[in-house]
């Protein structure tokens, strides 16, 4: 996976397969602490402690019921390779929380990638899912929720192709707005790690 946004798509698919009706994704960028965190919380069926513990091990899987696959191990690897970590908290019957941290400026940190496309695809393909997204960067914040978008659509589905196009562009613009650090270009701003747009591709 080349982007954190693709990992998010993958982990949320796990939530959906675990029967979640509500998934909250939070991305927090803290340039001061050189920290990028991604949190995914769902209300799916959850995992017993032994399964949750094993969930990041690529060689352990309960294939028959498929609560886990290669997705979490790949994300855990990406996190570890960039000086971060991944933790899974899960309670049967309540849900699962996946928390991933990265060192923002680490050379091996994957770019955030196209989070807007990830979210728009998830909303289009799962129009009844209550998907909440929060993007925080150095205290600035953007929030979007599928429930709010639905309430503005008066019965037209989030899966409608024209709605998808709008949602993708809207979220993309808002994330750029939050990530826009004032257009200072380089010179001497050592603390600013290369922007995700610069790192992607």
């Amino acid at each position, binding site marked *: *996976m080349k982007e954190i946004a*693709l990992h998010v*798509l*993958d982990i949320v*698919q796990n939530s*959906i*397969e675990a029967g979640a009706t509500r998934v909250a994704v939070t991305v927090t960028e803290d340039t001061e602490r050189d920290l990028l965190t991604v949190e995914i919380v769902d209300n799916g069926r959850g995992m017993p402690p032994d399964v949750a513990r094993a969930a990041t091990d690529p060689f352990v899987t309960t294939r028959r019921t*498929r609560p886990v*696959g*290669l*997705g979490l191990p*790949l994300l855990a690897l990406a996190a570890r390779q960039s000086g971060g970590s991944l933790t899974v908290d899960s309670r049967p019957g309540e849900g699962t929380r996946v928390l991933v941290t990265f060192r923002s400026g680490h050379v091996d940190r994957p770019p955030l990638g*196209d989070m807007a*496309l*990830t979210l*728009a*695809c*998830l909303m*289009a*393909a*799962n129009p009844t899912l209550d998907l909440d997204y929060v993007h925080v960067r150095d205290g600035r914040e953007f929030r979007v929720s599928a429930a*709010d*978008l639905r309430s*503005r*659509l*008066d019965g*037209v*589905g989030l*899966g*409608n*192709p*024209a*709605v*998808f*196009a*709008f949602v*993708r*562009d*809207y979220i993309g*613009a*808002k994330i750029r*707005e939050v990530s826009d650090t004032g257009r200072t270009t380089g010179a001497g701003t050592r603390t600013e790690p290369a922007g995700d747009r610069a790192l992607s591709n």
Partner: protein
Amino acid sequence: MVKSLEELAKIREQAKKALAAREGEAETKIVVGMGTCGIAAGAREVMAAILDELAKRDLGTVTVTQTGCVGLCDKEPLVDVIKPGQPKVTYGRVDAERARRIVAQHVVNDQVVGEWVVGTSS
């Protein structure tokens, strides 16, 4: 210019008109494989291309959903096209370009794109 949510009302009204024009048409379903294998192989861009092509053609009655790993990981990205009254057709190794052709040829014109089919079932 940053988009505002107010613009969604306009999209909504246009979509309603387009849907009304197609009222009574049987619904086609498209399913994109979005397991780890599918995503790693490019399923997100495939889904984006399908939705984009549907938007261009004003095909608001076609629904696009996602599914997990179905065990054909080496053939991902997989795309199912399910037209009413017809067997399900599964396409393999779909990319954005193929996805657009599948919409144009199969979804719109009812012609299965035989060379990319990996399976059919009713």
